[in-house]
């Protein structure tokens, strides 16, 4: 390669580097945020059939009527994926319809729950987290402590009007994620062709030692809405 070529390359390279540093390259990430699908509705006997869809409040302030997307038995894309500071959280909206021929009692459960601790940060170990970070032999994450301090708040809405169905000004139901994994939360009875919109909020709420040992942990799960035909 000749000196002339090198000089031209350097000159153009300086220009490219300088222009590249002026901010013409926007930070771009295009992950699809189509809510749904850590949620699934079980297939039931006796003509009970729950279908689910992602919902969108028509008002940007998250109130008012809801737009329900295409219904399906189960939703497949991730529902919630976020990293949060202490006290923070995220929320998603869903529509449920009972297309079966019988009224069903709908309950909410957390299934496939996994608590992982892949990093030992801050004072986590000093506060008695004996499963802090990865196992030094297998390098696999050890047991985490996040799900007992994740609060799941559930609110029910009339999809057509957007008005709350149960407790105005307060969550209709509240439970820890680990609690939801062991004890289903009974929500509402849905008549045949009955529809309800659900808001799910998940917060990291912890204090004292529990906050310390649950830091830099990870919890994965799916929400399940189960419809059970009412016994006569």
């Amino acid at each position: 390669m000749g000196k002339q070529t090198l000089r031209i390359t350097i000159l153009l390279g300086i220009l490219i580097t300088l222009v590249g540093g002026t901010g013409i390259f926007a930070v771009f990430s295009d992950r699809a945020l189509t809510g749904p699908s850590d949620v699934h509705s079980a297939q039931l006997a006796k003509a009970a059939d729950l279908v689910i869809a992602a919902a969108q409040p028509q008002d940007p302030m998250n109130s008012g009527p809801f737009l329900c997307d295409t219904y399906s038995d189960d939703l497949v894309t991730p529902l919630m994926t976020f990293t949060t500071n202490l006290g923070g959280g995220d929320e998603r909206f869903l529509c449920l319809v009972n297309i079966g021929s019988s009224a069903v009692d709908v309950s909410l459960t957390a299934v496939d729950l996994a608590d992982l601790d892949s990093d030992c940060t801050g004072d986590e170990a000093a506060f008695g987290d004996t499963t802090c970070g990865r196992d030094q032999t297998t390098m696999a994450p050890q047991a985490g402590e996040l799900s007992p301090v994740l609060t799941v708040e559930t609110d029910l809405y009339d999809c057509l009007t957007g008005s709350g169905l149960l407790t105005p000004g307060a969550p209709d139901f509240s439970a820890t994620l680990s609690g939801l994994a062991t004890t289903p939360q009974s929500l509402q009875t849905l008549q045949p062709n009955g529809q309800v919109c659900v808001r799910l909020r998940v917060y990291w709420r912890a204090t004292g030692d529990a906050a310390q040992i649950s830091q830099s942990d990870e919890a994965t799960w799916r929400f399940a809405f189960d419809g059970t035909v009412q016994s006569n």
Partner: protein
Amino acid sequence: MALGWRGWRAAALAAVLAILLPLTAFLVSVWLLGWQLQHVESGSMSPTYPVGSLLVTAQLDPADVEVGMPIVFEDPREAGRLVTHRVVAVTPGSQLAFTTRGDANATNDPSPVPARLVRGRVLWSVTYLGSVLDWLQWPRSFLLLVAIPASLLGWLELRARRPLHQAIRRRELT
């Protein structure tokens, strides 16, 4: 026919001029016009904008947004994260907002996009070029196009001067 040293030098010069000159002109033009470049990292807008494409975007008045237009906006649920999706519905009024969806997505995006989060519109896209330019950003561009050629140039200059130094030294000794 094999290329001689001069042939290789001419080919290298031609390659540099053919690749770097248009690239530099393109980047400088984008900079002067106040546009922005974006690299498509996921397939939510396929096949319109395949992964690896380069999007050239310009600022946009939210009042000019129409249904069917791909817009660049800041994710309402994650501050600072830019997303390019197509507008499928407009909520008019004092709280102007847009319902968006990726062309390859089965459902609309979960949150409407308020007008204040609209960042621009897509002028055009170039397949594959996004990955190339994304890879070429600082510090790679500096290393590949400035530091390495400068080192090579310095080495060539030194090598060219060595015989001259040796001749002067021989003359001094005699």
